[in-house]
């Protein structure tokens, strides 16, 4: 089925309710779907579990969701940064739960969810604090840790362009988590600079096939 073309960012996130697990794309500000996050802030959903590489920067986007105490748990690889003051405060106050995951395991857990994989053994983290309590196995003499998929209710993603069938093209390093997050959520919501007619993106250049995309909203871009 072709994705729903939402009329605004607010319309795009309207189905997100309290307690939802939300994958949010972006690495730093590259690929971070700022307008969708702002709309999520406005829609009032709370007790969210958020999955992102970071835990918000400065006073925008995910940082504000955390500031407003709408995130009960964050799953990320790199929460602490020079400008992660809202996360730092919530964490020190014991008002946000943190699940710290090595970046590659985070990516693979998301990919696994989208690919229907029930778990996988990874060498990353073996013998470290982040493997404590997890099943381990030695395979061909090398230690591995069992990691499980991260499924989500929603994914908020930023891409450069979508066609009316939801096929996506990204831009440079803003691609980062977008393609895997689109696959791992029951509902993938994508903000794009531009929506074009089906057929105007060369099929050879499609990065995320439309089958993974549920909602698209055209917000225009700076470029």
């Amino acid at each position, binding site marked *: 089925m072709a994705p729903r073309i939402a009329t605004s960012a607010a319309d795009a996130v309207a189905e997100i309710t309290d307690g939802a697990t939300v994958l949010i794309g972006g690495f730093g*500000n*590259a690929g971070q779907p700022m307008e969708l996050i702002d709309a999520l802030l406005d829609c009032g959903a709370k007790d969210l579990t958020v999955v992102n590489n970071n835990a918000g920067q400065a006073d925008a986007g995910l940082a504000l969701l955390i500031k407003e105490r709408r995130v009960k748990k964050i799953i990320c690889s*790199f929460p602490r940064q020079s400008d992660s003051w809202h996360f730092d405060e919530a964490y*020190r106050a014991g008002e946000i739960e943190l699940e710290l995951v090595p*970046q590659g395991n985070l990516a693979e857990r998301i990919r696994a969810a989208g690919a229907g994989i029930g778990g996988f053994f990874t*060498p990353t983290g073996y013998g*470290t*604090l982040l493997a404590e309590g997890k099943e381990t196995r030695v395979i061909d003499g090398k230690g591995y840790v069992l990691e499980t998929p991260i499924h989500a209710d929603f994914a908020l993603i930023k891409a450069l362009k979508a066609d009316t069938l939801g096929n996506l093209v990204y831009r*440079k390093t803003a691609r*980062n988590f977008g393609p895997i997050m689109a696959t791992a959520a029951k509902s993938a919501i994508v903000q794009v600079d531009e929506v074009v007619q089906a057929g105007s993106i060369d099929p050879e250049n499609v990065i995320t096939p439309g089958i993974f995309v549920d909602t698209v909203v055209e917000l225009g871009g700076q470029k």
Partner: protein
Amino acid sequence: MSAMTTTEAKLTRDEMAQLVAADIPAGAFVNLGIGQPTNVSNYLTKEQGVTLHTENGMLGMGPVATGEDIDPDLINAGKIPVTQLPGASFFHHADSFAMMRGGHLDVCVLGAFQISKDGDLANWHTGAEGAIPAVGGAMDLAIGAKATWVMMSLFTKDGESKLVETLSYPVTGLGCVSRIYTEVAVFELRDAKVFVRSTHGISFEELAAKVPVELTQA
């Protein structure tokens, strides 16, 4: 006969970077960690044909972008705007970390808090009370590349050796480091031994007295 070399002065940070750059094999795929290792890129020559990987999803990363070349969609792992070189490619995070974990990168260069004589690496968390942990790609990088090299100062501010018998900081990866570049010596970890390849501003004997692990002249 020992092949170990000695220079009279300690290495500066730039000289360390230069040394690392010169050791990178021609044509290698390389990931340079955030901080001091990033400096290595300044000394790679065109003839070396090295391709730089950045874990946020790019091969063929060029120098830091300035002026009109700054593009918020084109950044490195330190979130600094960079440039792309001819032949560059972009990919998503799972592919990017498959390149590491799958052993496709030839070399990664990282910083460290501590390294054990067996090549165990600590560089992600001090373990200090109240510290907020952050790991990023450190654990993936440490165990993923074919060769993991470390650049660091050999001693802490209190003069303690960061090359130790057993780690006291939380582990990033076990048995992964094969070479350590410091301002006073370059170490090679192989065959369950710590070889000293070169010393700088210090004699082998002085070094051996300050480092609490058994050293062997290369």
